[in-house]
């Protein structure tokens, strides 16, 4: 039988960190329970057989020059703009 992983608090925190989501402490038990139920039910997929993805088409876009939308258009929906550029939040401590 395939092993059933346990969604413990440590794993939940790791997943939330990877997904850039914050889980409030009072929501953790419920979320843990839900994810555990799904993972337990999905753990019995057959491990034999081949995923024949080689035969699937993997088309590429033609490598041709085109005119992209102007900078103004691209920046229209930005959260914050300065001097025609996206303002990116600080991710490292100063």
């Amino acid at each position, binding site marked *: 039988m395939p092993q059933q992983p346990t969604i413990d608090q440590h794993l939940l925190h790791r997943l939330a960190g*990877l997904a850039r989501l*914050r889980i409030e402490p009072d929501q953790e038990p419920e979320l843990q329970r839900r*994810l555990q139920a799904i993972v337990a039910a999905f753990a019995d997929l057959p491990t034999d057989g081949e*995923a024949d993805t080689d035969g699937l088409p993997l088309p590429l876009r033609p490598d041709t020059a085109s005119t992209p939308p102007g900078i103004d258009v691209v920046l229209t929906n930005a959260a914050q703009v300065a001097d025609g550029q996206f303002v990116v939040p600080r991710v490292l401590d100063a």
Partner: protein
Amino acid sequence: MSASLAGTAADLATRIRRGDCSAREVTAACLERIAAHDGGLRAFVGVAAERALRAADRIDDRRARGEALGALAGVPIAWKDNLLVEGELATAGSRILEGFRAPYTATALARLERADAVLLGRTNLDEFGMGSSTESSAHGPTRNPVAPHLVPGGSSGGSAAAVAAGFCPIAIGSDTGGSVRQPASFCGVTGLKPGYGRVSRFGLIAYASSLDCVGAIARTAEDLALWLDAVAGRDDADPTTLPDAPPVFDRVVAGRDLRGLRVLAPREWHADGIDGEVLRRTEQARSQLAALGAAVGEGRLPAARHAVKAYYLLATGEAASNLARYDGVHFGPRRAAAGIDPTTATRTWGFGREVQLRILLGTFALSYGYSEQFHDAAERARAALRADFARAFERCDLVVAPTSPIPPFPIGETETDPLRRYLVDALTVPASLAGLPALSLPCGTTADGRPIGLQLIAPAGKEDVLLRAAHVFQLATTHHLARPIA
């Protein structure tokens, strides 16, 4: 109902081309009907009234100048709010796209405009297409025109409700695991998911890119054939689109009987876990297919028993990746919160509960130590299902099944256990995983009047066979003619 809105989209376009009525008259009638009835239903999250009337006037002017008009001349069409129309809002039913205005138009909608359709407005959906009831939308739920206490299905619930309420003859949706077919079934209308790659996804806000398909909802298969011919075909902006295929409309409407058509009903899909009334109605529909000349037999699709698991692992993995772009930098508002970075603060604020759950599940399925047992196993299950369908289509032309194992349920009573909720998709996800064209058409109701849909699934590239069979069924039946709002 206004006389100008009666009949099919095909009839409407013919009348407008002939000058029996104007495009403005028809568009104005749709807008009036929406104003009168959508307050209680909320099929639309935004009506593009001025844009639509301007487009209608341009069509009328061109007709007045003697120019030839397209196949969808003056036909008002709504679009699901996860497709882009330049200059219009596009929210995908999520707070995280609050205020987002599309910088370009989706190919599937640009081609409708090229065929002289009138784009009417944006319809409600489950957030990012993740749901089966349209209750997870940041805009609030949509109600089913058949009975307002019921959900319209989802995720294209707004589009299905718009057609069922008679707001427009065609509404565009998207179908990742059943999001066109299931709401069509719940609202008593007809919904088509073309095969993967038949219609461009350029300008469709991505949920799960290997499964997402642009589809449409209408009253009749005839109108869906008209729609498909207008939008299908190669698009360099979406490298996964298939080469152009011959148009289907003439072959579809020429259908008069089903002689020579072989239909297979998988035993697994007509058994335990399916509501009794759904079983009875779909079995009656199978008998009607046989009475129309089809050879209906039973068969098996054993790998389908893993379809829901495979679907949710693959779809959520792709969603976790696709939704990484909502980082509080490129699109939508940015949020701040004490002690966490702005990206985490924005995503935690902007995504609803179901979307967050699916992102976490997808992150798990793809993460180190688990991807082989979950994501890779799901890929193998998908390959096994494709092989099952290939074997089945060696001895049949269509697979038939109920669209949903249950009829529409009341708003607010959606199962809170996610596992049981996901199992409701058991009959629609197999065609999605295999990339096959599939359709839902009305085949009756429960004793208390809730619509039931029949699903047909065709081999890749056989949308014409699918639509023709549905058209013949609709010539012989009246289920699709019911109008819940006079």
